[in-house]
C-alpha cells in the first residue's frame, strides 16, 4: 500500500506544478477535480463520531519538494514514520502545494478520496486548513506552526516545536568556536519565528562569548541560491567565521562556508556531510514521534479537547520536541559540549533563553524586562532584535 501511495505522489506533484505554471500564465486552466464529489460528501456530517475517529485515510500537504535537504524533506520522513507505525492507514501526500487556494483544493481533494485526518504542513497553509476544517466538520485538520484562538473551528488543531531551543544550543557552539567574534546569519523573511531564532542563536553565543556579534542578512526569499551565495560571500568578507541560516534550501550556504574555510551551523536537516571540516552544530526536524502520536489521538476519537486541539508546542521541557539538535562536529571541544549539555538540562527544567533582562539592539533599552520569561507563544510574536545583532528588521 505504501508503494502505491508513493507512486501516486509524483504524479500529483507534477500535475500541481504544471498547473501552477499554467495558472500564473493566465491560461485560466481551472482545476475542477474536487467540486462534484465534495458536494456529495457534505451530506455525511451527521454520523455523530468525533472528527477523524476511526480514520482509514490520512492526507498530508507540503509547500516544497520532498527532498530539499530541509523542512519539507523532514515532513516526508515524518510521513514515512506514520506509514511504518500505522500500516493499515492509507496515506495521501502532495508536495509543492503553494500557500493559496491550491492548498484548499489539494486538501479538499484528499477529503473526497476518503481522508478524515489532514496535515497542512507549511506556515502559510493556515488559511486553507481553516477553510477546509469549516467545510468538513467530520475531518480532523492539523496545521503545522500556526497560532489559533477560540474563533477557530474545534476540529482544527495546530502543533509545532519550540524551535529556538536547539538554535540556542547551536549558538553556544558558534560562540565558543568563533575567533573573529563575528557570526553570519542568512534568513529569508523577518517573520517572528526567524527573528526568535536569530536572537536565540545570538544569546547562545553570548552566553559563552559576551562580545560576539551576529550579522543578520535577508535574501527576501525562502530559497534563492544565487542570492544566498552572494550573501555568504559578503558575510565572510565582513569577517564572519561561522555561518548559519534560516532558509528552506540550505546547501548553497553550507558549501560556500566550507569552501571558504569557515564554520557552519546547520538548520532544518543534518547536512554535516556537506561540510566535513567546518560543521559545528545544527538543528533538525524530527516528526517521526509527533505525527504518529497525533494520529493515534485522532483515530481513538479523542482529538477534541486534547493537547493537540490547539497550539501544541513540543519542547525540551515536555520532552516531545520535533526540532532537535543535530550531531555536533568533530571540532567541538569537550568543554563546549559540557556547556551545551548543561544548557539542555536547564531547558528541560523549563528555563527559556528569553528570560529578562535582555536589551534591544541599542544595548540600553530592555526588550524583555527583568523578571519576565517569554512563553513559546510570546516568542511566536517576536518583532525585535536583541543587543549584539547587526541587521535591519524593516527590510
Amino acid at each position: 500500500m505504501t508503494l502505491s501511495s508513493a507512486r501516486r505522489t509524483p504524479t500529483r506533484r507534477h500535475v500541481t506544478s504544471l498547473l501552477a505554471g499554467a495558472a500564473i500564465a493566465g491560461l485560466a486552466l481551472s482545476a475542477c477535480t474536487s467540486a462534484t464529489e465534495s458536494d456529495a460528501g457534505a451530506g455525511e456530517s451527521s454520523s455523530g463520531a468525533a472528527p477523524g475517529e476511526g480514520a482509514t485515510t490520512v492526507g498530508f500537504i507540503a509547500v516544497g519538494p520532498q527532498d530539499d535537504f530541509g523542512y519539507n524533506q523532514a515532513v516526508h520522513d515524518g510521513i514515512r514514520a506514520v506509514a511504518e507505525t500505522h500500516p493499515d492507514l492509507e496515506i495521501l501526500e502532495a508536495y509543492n502545494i503553494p500557500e493559496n487556494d491550491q492548498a484548499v483544493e489539494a486538501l479538499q481533494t484528499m477529503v473526497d478520496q476518503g481522508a478524515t485526518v489532514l496535515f497542512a504542513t507549511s506556515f502559510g497553509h493556515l488559511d486553507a486548513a481553516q477553510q477546509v476544517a469549516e467545510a468538513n466538520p467530520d475531518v480532523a485538520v492539523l496545521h503545522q506552526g500556526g497560532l489559533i484562538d477560540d474563533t477557530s473551528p474545534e476540529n482544527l488543531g495546530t502543533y509545532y516545536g519550540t524551535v529556538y531551543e536547539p538554535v540556542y544550543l547551536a549558538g553556544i557552539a558558534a560562540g565558543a568556536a568563533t575567533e573573529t567574534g563575528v557570526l553570519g546569519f542568512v534568513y529569508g523573511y523577518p517573520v517572528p519565528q526567524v527573528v526568535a531564532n536569530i536572537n536565540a542563536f545570538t544569546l547562545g553565543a553570548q552566553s559563552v562569548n559576551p562580545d560576539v556579534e551576529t550579522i543578520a542578512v535577508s535574501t527576501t526569499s525562502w530559497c534563492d541560491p544565487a542570492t544566498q551565495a552572494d550573501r555568504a560571500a559578503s558575510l565572510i568578507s565582513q569577517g564572519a567565521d561561522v555561518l548559519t541560516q534560516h532558509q528552506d534550501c540550505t546547501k548553497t550556504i553550507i558549501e560556500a562556508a566550507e569552501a571558504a574555510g569557515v564554520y557552519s551551523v546547520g538548520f532544518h536537516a543534518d547536512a554535516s556531510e556537506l561540510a566535513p571540516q567546518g560543521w559545528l552544530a545544527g538543528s533538525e526536524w524530527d516528526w517521526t514521534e509527533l505525527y504518529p502520536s497525533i494520529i493515534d489521538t485522532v483515530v481513538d476519537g479523542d482529538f477534541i479537547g486534547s493537547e493537540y486541539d490547539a497550539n501544541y508546542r513540543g519542547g525540551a521541557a515536555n520532552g516531545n520536541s520535533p526540532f532537535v539538535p543535530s550531531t555536533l562536529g568533530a571540532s567541538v571541544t569537550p568543554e563546549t559540549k559540557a556547556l551545551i549539555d548543561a544548557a539542555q538540562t536547564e531547558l528541560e527544567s523549563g528555563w527559556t533563553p528569553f528570560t529578562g533582562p535582555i536589551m534591544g539592539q541599542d544595548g540600553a533599552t530592555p526588550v524583555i524586562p527583568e523578571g519576565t520569561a517569554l512563553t513559546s507563544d510570546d516568542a511566536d510574536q517576536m518583532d525585535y532584535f536583541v543587543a549584539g545583532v547587526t541587521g535591519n528588521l524593516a527590510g
Partner: protein
Amino acid sequence: MIIDILSGGVRGGTSLLFAGLGETISERAGVINLGTEGAMLVGALGGYAVTFHTGSPWLGVLGGAAAGALLALVHAVLVVSRGANQYASGLTLFFLALGLTALFGVDYVSRQITAFTPVKIPVLGDIPVVGPVLFDHDPLVYAGYVVVPLVAWVMFRTRAGLLLRSAGERADALGVNGYSVVAVRYAAVVSGGALAGIGGAHISIAYANSWFENMIAGRGFIAVSLVIFAMWHPVNVLLGAYLFGAALSLASVLQANGVDVNQFALNAIPFLMTLVVLTVLGKRTLRKAPDELLKVLETAKA
C-alpha cells in the same frame, strides 16, 4: 566595501551577461524572447545534471548551452515558422520550463557536484582593486570577457553579422538578395538560447553550486530588461550586466555592513535603472532598436 560590491557585481553579473548577450543576438535578428528566464532555468538544470553525471563542469557548460538552445528552438519554430505572437510564445515557454525543470530537477536537488572554483590569474590578480574585482573569479567569468568582444566582432565586422543585422533591420532586402530570413533568425534565436543556457549554468555550477526549482528567480527577466538598457549593443550589455550585478550585490554588502537599507527596494534597482533609461531617452531608445523588432514592439503598443 567598494571592492566587495564591484567584485560581487562581476561575479553575479556574469549570468546576466551571457543571457543578455543571447537576447541581444536574438533581438538583433528581429525576435524578442521573453523565455530567456526559461532558457536560463533549463540551462541551470542541464548544466547541473551533466556536471553531476560526468564530473566535469566544462561538459556541464555544454549541457546548459544545449538545453537553452533546445528551448529557444521551440520558440523559433513557433514565432519564425508558425508566425506566433512573440510575447505569448516566450512567456509560455518560460512557464513550461518552470514546470518541466521542477519535475525533472527533483532528482538533483540534494546531489553534490564538482563545481567551478575561482582561479586567481597570476600577476593580474595581485593588482590592487583591479585584481580582486576582475581577476579572481571562476573560469566562466573570464569566458565572459572573451565572448563579448567576440560577439561584437562577429556582429559588426563579419558577413554573418551583416546577415544577422539585416534580418533585424531589412528582412525584405535580405530575402531579395537570396538569403533565407528564416534560417538567419533560427540561428540567432537558437544561439541566443544557448548563451542564456550558459548564463543559467553559471548560477548552478559556478555561483550557487546547487540546483533548486525556480532558482533563476527573475534574473532572466532582468537580462531582457538589460538589453533595452544596453541599446542592443554587446559592449553595453557587458557594462550593464556588471552594473545590474553590482546593484544586486549592493544588498548583500550594505546589509553585511549593518547599513539600514530596504532589501525589497534594492531588488528593484535593475528595473528602476531600465525605467530611467526608457524615461530619459523615450523614443530615442526605439530608434536604436532593430526595425523588424519595432514592428513587434509597436504592435504591442496598440
